[in-house]
């Protein structure tokens, strides 16, 4: 049994907006009421104060650099593949974007208690926990990747993780190698994977209709075995830094990793 947690692939149904006059009237009326309604302010203190809400209100679209058609290749490209359970959600590092927006963005970190290391590309070992960055908060609003609902505490599954070399040996903080790199297994062995995983990508070879979670776990293990045996080659991607760190438009220095 499976669940498909992605939004419909195709664009939105047709709909018409309200008349501009009505919108303007409602907005103007709201401003007037709000200005007069200062005493109502105290009615919503909790909603106002939490900079890291538990539920995402925002969605962001993200375009992947990688694409995987083969589970063994996605495995081999990952730094670490673990089976585990989310035990804590917490704010991580805050970064202010130096791009003209001055946006201050805080990573949302999922602490995963590791049950089993399925694949270990770099000889990292067997960590008790790993930290996975999944979404972010900005200005009191949580953002989730489109088609990838936030993992909640208590959810279990498989996590295909990466971090840039060589730091990967010195960090406990990882990111998903791809949107298809999170396999949550729920009650009744329901499997949930982000994106169009039933139509394209590394999971299409798994019998998700009849096989349920056991079919996925078998596929995960045999792909890990193939990667460990060197039968699958990691997919490399180009990454760059500016040749003059102070000049964004200076010639890029790029390499593959």
């Amino acid at each position, binding site marked *: 049994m499976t669940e498909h947690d992605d939004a419909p692939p195709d664009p939105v149904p047709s*709909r018409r907006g309200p008349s501009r006059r009505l919108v303007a009237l409602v907005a103007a009326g*709201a401003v007037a*009421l709000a200005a007069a309604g200062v005493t109502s302010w105290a009615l919503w203190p909790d909603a106002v104060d939490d900079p890291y809400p538990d539920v995402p209100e925002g969605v962001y679209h993200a375009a*992947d650099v990688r694409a995987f058609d083969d589970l063994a290749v996605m495995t081999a490209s990952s730094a670490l593949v673990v089976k585990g359970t989310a035990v804590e959600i917490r704010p991580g590092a805050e970064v202010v974007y130096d791009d003209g927006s001055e946006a201050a963005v805080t990573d949302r970190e999922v602490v995963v208690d590791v049950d089993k290391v399925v694949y270990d590309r770099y000889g990292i070992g067997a960590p008790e926990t790993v930290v996975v960055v999944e979404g972010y908060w900005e*200005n*009191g609003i949580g953002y989730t990747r*489109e088609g990838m609902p936030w993992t909640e505490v208590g959810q279990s599954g498989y996590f295909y993780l*990466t971090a840039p070399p060589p730091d990967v040996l010195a960090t406990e903080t990882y990111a998903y190698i791809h949107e298809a790199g999170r396999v949550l297994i729920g009650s009744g062995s329901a499997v949930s994977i982000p994106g169009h995983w039933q139509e394209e990508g590394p999971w299409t070879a798994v019998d998700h209709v009849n096989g349920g979670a056991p079919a996925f776990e078998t596929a995960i293990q045999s792909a890990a075995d193939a990667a460990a045996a060197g039968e699958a080659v990691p997919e490399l991607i180009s990454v760059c830094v500016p040749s003059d760190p102070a000049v*964004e438009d200076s010639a890029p220095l790029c390499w593959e990793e």
Partner: protein
Amino acid sequence: MTTSTQSKANRALRSRPMRILLATASAALVLLAGAAPVQASHGGDANSGPPDNTTHYLERFNLTRAASGATTHGLGQLDRSVMDATYADGPETDVLIYDAYYGRTGSWQGIAGRTNCQEDEWWWDGDCDVYRLRYNLSYAASYGIDSWRSLACHELGHTAGLGHRSAPSDTDNNSCMRNKIDSSRPRFDAHDISAINATF
């Protein structure tokens, strides 16, 4: 941007406490008027849904030459549809466009570009008023011109309300709205154009 109440100067009104107050107040107003209730409980910049109208003003924030050129290509792709996309700065902007070396860790790991709704019409139907689009030079700086064009077409496609296309739904393999950026797909296909047009 559609109404004068939504200029940048008024964005202070979009703080969370003010939004909650406004949402409640506007809901009360609409109920008094006997109209259908608004989605007042929404309360945030949640949707990266369709744009609020076809007029689409794009503003570039100090982009690299490659990003700027690709954006012009993407603008031209939007103009193949009913969208009327032009460059314009200021309070009427619909799409704020940035680039930077955002890095290759955390939420930027393996991500060449990202788009979200910065300000949606939360008091009405969640259509998006202002989008924010970012190119990640940590990957895109290695791109040739067609990969750049594919990326810009893709991200600007999100600002026209398009979602991702999967391989089986793009059998001609020629839509820039596929999840992976590819130099062989720098344009919208006819399906993408129809989908944008059907939104309005």
